[in-house]
């Protein structure tokens, strides 16, 4: 009998092993042409540490989960506009402080729980609680109270009117959670979105499977796989060999020419929220003198920087606002490339033959940008010595935290981050915000038109003061198989929205 038991156990183990192999075989066969129409593989660099963006920083987590697994009341579309998602519609009171959302009926979390007004209250209040430790949680500070009116109606009362708040509700802080689904956020993601996490092979990929009980339109493919690579060269190699179908947010534009000339591939250049910021320490000499900063603005030919450092990909806008923001304005005419003017300003400031240190983080874009910047500064008599700082550790410590630098360059990726960068004198840029503080508060509290107009004035002031030189808006480069459709080329929030991706 005993030996029989043993045999039974062995058989069970064997059967289990066999069924596992069968599963693997099934997954492997998805590479065949017909099956390919049902799945898509996207190559990314930088894998999430875990699945919990409420406690862990880093863009990789919301990139994979927002819009796909988690949804908010609203979403930000490709043009940067706010669109309804889990809220069908909303009304704003006359004092612009109370939003009343009408929720979509029939939406369900992937654990089977229905999505109701209680979940909205739970999710917003959770951001305000200690459960969230992300620095982004301050975006919810403006909320005074959340009142459940009925199962499908919820009222959010703000402390003061805020235009930024509704936009933020379309980003990760607005993600809707189910009270019974937040126990193990680091490993399990339960949301109302069109996908669930089917498998996570750490160090390799995240597999998303389309839900049968999704409230909205079914996504274009049954399975979407996010595969993580070490660098840009590896991603393009994988695309060329057919291992992946899409390379998203590609970081090596020099590699693109071979794809551009090949009909089997498509190259999309979208915008992103990322600004390449040439920072000048506003609090330290010599850049505490506005004329010296303005001289730098005139000394640098931003279009030439894009052309040489980033192969012509990227948008030169002359200010710290990407084109998808409501208060965007082309400010290229404020500081045209004019070395003579730059020299004049330096002379006025008594800063001729200036020696400065240029702290460059060890990122591809930064090293590429630094060499052309140094060359152009040399032409107006600013001798910049490059000192490389390991990124992120050394750079964050030395420049971002200790403000121990004169000039640096970094990619600022947060959405609508103008005020975060310039409306805070303790930020590493050290910009004196006394001129914009009140104007910014007033703009946020006024109506939409007033918000855009007010913020434009704020941005104008920042640019006039030459607080920092935004060299260009970082492109979101996508290279993909020519037959893939519905790729969100613009990266407006952190999310990589996979719902519309399909095959021709």
């Amino acid at each position: 009998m005993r030996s029989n038991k043993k045999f039974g156990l062995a058989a069970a183990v064997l059967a289990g092993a066999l069924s596992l192999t069968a599963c693997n075989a099934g997954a492997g066969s998805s590479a065949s042409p017909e099956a390919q129409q049902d799945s898509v593989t996207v190559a990314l660099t930088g894998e999430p540490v875990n699945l919990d963006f409420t406690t862990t920083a880093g863009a990789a987590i919301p990139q994979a989960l927002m819009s796909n697994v988690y949804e908010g009341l609203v979403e930000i579309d490709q043009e940067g506009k706010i669109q309804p998602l889990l809220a069908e519609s909303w009304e704003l009171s006359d004092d612009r402080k109370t939003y009343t959302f009408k929720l979509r009926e029939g939406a369900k979390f992937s654990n089977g729980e229905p999505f109701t007004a209680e979940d909205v209250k739970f999710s917003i209040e959770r951001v305000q609680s200690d459960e969230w430790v992300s620095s982004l949680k301050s975006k919810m500070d403006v909320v005074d109270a959340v009142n459940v009116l009925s199962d499908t109606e919820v009222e959010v009362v703000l402390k003061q009117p805020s235009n930024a708040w509704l936009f933020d509700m379309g980003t990760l802080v607005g993600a809707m959670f189910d009270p019974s689904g937040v126990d193990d956020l680091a490993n399990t993601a339960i949301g109302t979105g069109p996908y669930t996490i089917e498998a996570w092979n750490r160090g390799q990929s995240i597999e998303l499977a389309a839900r049968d009980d999704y409230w909205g339109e079914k996504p274009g493919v049954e399975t979407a796989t996010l595969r993580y690579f070490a660098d840009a060269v590896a991603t393009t190699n994988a695309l060329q060999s057919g291992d992946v179908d899409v390379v998203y947010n590609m970081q090596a534009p020099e590699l693109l020419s071979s794809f551009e000339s090949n009909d089997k591939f498509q190259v999309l250049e979208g915008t992103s929220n990322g600004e390449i910021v040439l920072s000048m320490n506003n609090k330290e000499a010599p850049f505490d003198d506005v004329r010296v900063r303005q001289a730098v603005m005139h000394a640098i030919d931003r279009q030439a920087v894009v052309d040489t450092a980033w192969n012509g990909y990227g948008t030169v806008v002359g200010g710290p606002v990407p084109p998808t923001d409501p208060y965007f304005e082309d400010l290229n005419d404020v500081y045209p490339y004019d070395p003579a003017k730059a020299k004049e300003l330096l002379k006025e400031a008594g800063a001729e033959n200036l020696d400065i240190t240029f702290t460059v983080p060890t990122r591809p874009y930064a090293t590429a940008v630094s060499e052309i910047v140094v060359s152009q500064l040399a032409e107006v008599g600013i001798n910049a010595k490059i000192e490389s700082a390991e990124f992120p550790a050394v750079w964050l410590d030395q420049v971002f935290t200790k403000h121990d630098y004169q000039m640096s360059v970094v990619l600022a990726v947060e959405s609508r981050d103008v005020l975060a960068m310039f409306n805070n004198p303790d930020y590493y840029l050290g910009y004196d915000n006394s001129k914009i503080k009140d104007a910014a508060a007033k703009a946020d509290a006024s109506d939409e038109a007033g918000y855009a107009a007010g913020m434009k004035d704020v941005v104008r002031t920042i640019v006039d003061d030459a607080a920092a030189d935004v060299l260009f808006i970082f492109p979101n480069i996508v290279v993909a198989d020519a037959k893939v459709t519905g790729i969100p080329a613009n990266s407006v929030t952190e999310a990589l929205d996979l719902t519309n991706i399909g095959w021709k």
Partner: protein
Amino acid sequence: MTTQPAAVVRSTRRRPAPTLLIGAALVLLVVLAALISFVWTPYDPVQAAPADRLQGSSAAHLMGTDRYGRDVFSGILYGARITLLVGLVAVGIALLIGTPLGILAGMRGGAVEEVSMRAADILLAFPALLVAIMFGAVFGASTTTAMLAIGIGSIPGFARVARSGTLQVMSTEYVLAAKASSQGAFRIARRHVLPNIAGMVVVQCSVSFAIAVLAEAALSFLGLGTPPPVPSWGRMLQESQQFLGTYPMLAVWPGLAIAVAVLGFNLVGDGLRDKFDPKLNGGR
């Protein structure tokens, strides 16, 4: 050097070996490039000219231009300077520390030998490149730290060569004679040991030089050597990496320059070894 002809190992070869000639020619090429760069380069090697970027070879730009429109030929000429400087200083450090240490160990023996040679072994256990990377991480990337690190990493080689040479010399009759006539240790080292191991040490210099050139290129490639924008062959190679598919010549030029320098010093080293090595010459 040959103040004591009787004590110097004679070479039986009259004509220099072809490897030595070729090596010398390649080294000369690098030295010339470096010297020329002091008085003339076609363009300023750090001056960007965005309008002329990524051009192929032409009369105006002999080796084309890079992504910033900088003249590659000017960069190669200027880069020779960095290469030679790093090689000279690194080998100099190793020579000046390693050789006396080796002679001391060889002549004294006993505890002195044990300690200094084990120290050299320990240093040898760390590849020179690893030492250099550590230096770069601690003191920041610069040409100076690269030179120091490569130099320190090359000390054990010199110490070992000097010691083994010294041991051989110490057992010869003329040294015994010198000892018998109660000459001081320092005098023996200077008049008998040094001239006799000079050949070996010169060979070691040449080989170490080649290694130093390669190490500097590797460090710059990793971003731990000469900081931009000063042209360095290793970094030029690294910057051309992304253009391999589209502008392969950008990588070929600095690669060729590094190859020429390394091959040159290695061949010189080999040639000199053939010349000095008594076994290969059928001498004693």
